[in-house]
């Protein structure tokens, strides 16, 4: 890519930043422009719901790299939002009206929070995805005594733990019947329910927010639940999932189906445009249908895979998915895609606070969910990456050393 036809990356989250970094590590010498629509230098998101909210507000540990890195590596940060793509002319239009020519375009545009639709006063619901919105929440937490979390997924529960640690009273409202229902098996949900309840979190399952009104005292809100119950609270935080940012791609006529559709090389339906990260639907050896995955691992592995292709060392994207969530003092680690699980085998016991759920389809190991049991996770990752499995009887035997399967 020349100065006149640079490589343009739209989105400076985990995927976009990692792509720029990996290109330079692969000795890519061309011009790189990174379009960043946030008011901060590129930063890491996972600490937002945990360390950042707990800490003193110092932003330095969040940055992927210090500012000097970008100029040293000739990665030009362009503070703007990309509004349209002209594929014929190979240009994008930016929010300020400027245009940017591209030789190759990469969409790393991520996802955005689903918004709570129940009637409420504008601005009274907080979200945790960007640093700007989390900074606003952090400020409000200083004067709050009671918080209500809508949605018992990863983000909601990580925040609930953080809020309890800060001494706040916490209620969690969940439409489904159990914690992290779309992501984990009932064994894991049950364990985390007990842990959060023991730490003092109150749960309301199978219900949703009917409306939020001012009331109950100075600056407070009253939340009406669908069943008529009411909760008085200082602060409402919603973590009810995300929608991929597909509008830019769709309006340019790229194929979109639950995300920006890419092939195994992470190319969109236009060979001059690739896409990576939370916004893409991609084929994987670990599922029968194309999937969209929201995780740091997927964003950064796709970035490295694409960087290799752009310097002529391409190979199909085949990374094994893995995930983590820190909730209070408990570490949840998941490897593999386990939606098709029809049989689970327990290793260790939830009573001891350290166990894994091995997820099978028949006798084939799909993945492993581990709680405070990192050895199962890391060894499981190596086994699954090699296309291996673990005999269900061996998995259940606490005396069987998993590591021996790697020898």
């Amino acid at each position: 890519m020349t100065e006149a036809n640079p490589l343009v990356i739209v989105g400076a989250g985990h995927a976009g930043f990692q792509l720029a970094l990996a290109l330079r590590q692969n000795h890519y010498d061309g011009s790189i422009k990174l379009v960043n629509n946030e008011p901060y230098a590129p930063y890491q998101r996972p600490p937002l719901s945990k360390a950042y909210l707990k800490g003193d507000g110092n932003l330095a540990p969040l940055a992927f790299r210090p500012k000097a890195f970008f100029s040293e590596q000739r990665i030009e940060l362009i503070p703007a939002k990309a509004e349209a793509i002209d594929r014929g002319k190979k240009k994008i239009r930016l929010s300020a009206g400027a245009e940017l020519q591209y030789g190759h375009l990469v969409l790393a545009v991520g996802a955005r929070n689903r918004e709570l639709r129940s009637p409420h006063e504008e601005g009274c619901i907080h979200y945790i995805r960007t640093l700007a919105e989390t900074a606003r929440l952090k400020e409000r937490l200083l004067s709050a005594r009671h918080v209500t979390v809508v949605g018992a997924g990863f983000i909601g529960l990580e925040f609930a733990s953080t809020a309890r640690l800060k001494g706040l009273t916490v209620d969690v409202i969940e439409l489904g019947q159990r914690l992290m229902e779309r992501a984990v098996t009932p064994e894991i949900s049950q364990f985390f329910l007990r842990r959060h309840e023991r730490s003092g979190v109150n749960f309301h399952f199978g219900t949703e927010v009917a409306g939020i009104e001012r009331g109950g005292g100075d600056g407070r809100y009253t939340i009406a639940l669908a069943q008529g119950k009411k909760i008085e609270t200082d602060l409402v935080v919603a973590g009810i999932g995300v929608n991929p940012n597909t509008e830019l791609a769709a309006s340019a006529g790229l194929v979109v189906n639950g995300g920006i559709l890419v092939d195994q090389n992470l190319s969109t339906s236009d060979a001059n445009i690739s896409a990576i990260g939370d916004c893409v639907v991609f084929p994987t050896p670990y599922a029968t249908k194309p999937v969209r995955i929201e995780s740091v691992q997927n964003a950064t592995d796709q970035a490295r895979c694409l960087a290799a292709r752009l310097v002529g060392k391409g190979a199909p994207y085949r990374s094994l998915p893995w995930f983590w969530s820190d909730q209070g003092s408990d570490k949840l680690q998941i490897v593999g895609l386990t939606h098709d699980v029809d049989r689970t085998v327990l290793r260790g016991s939830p009573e001891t606070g350290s166990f894994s759920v091995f997820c099978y389809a028949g006798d084939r190991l799909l993945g492993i969910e581990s709680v405070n049991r990192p050895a199962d996770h890391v060894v499981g990752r190596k086994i699954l990456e090699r296309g291996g499995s673990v005999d269900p009887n061996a998995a259940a035997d606490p005396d069987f050393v998993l590591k021996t399967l790697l020898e």
Partner: protein
Amino acid sequence: MPNITFLNPDGSRQTFDIAEGVSVMQGAVANSVGGIVGECGGNAMCATCHVYVDGSQVASFPPMSANEDALLDGTASDRKPNSRLSCQILVTEAVGGLVVELPERQI
């Protein structure tokens, strides 16, 4: 500030003064040391900040946690007796002059 030296697989070395209180991983990333990834941001989840600590210094560190021990079995380059995760080594005056060797691969 304590200084820490990173020895790259190609034999080159970089030395930086790193503020006390951060981890060796954070200090490496802040100085753009290419051989440290730190994908999980220092949560001891990913094993991509693997280092080999100079043999004469490894014994003087606080012992590693069971968690770090387990993760070291999942590193991309071979685990050795002096393997550590640099996100779990806190920079203090006591680690001044530390030399860590970077493995061939972190991913």
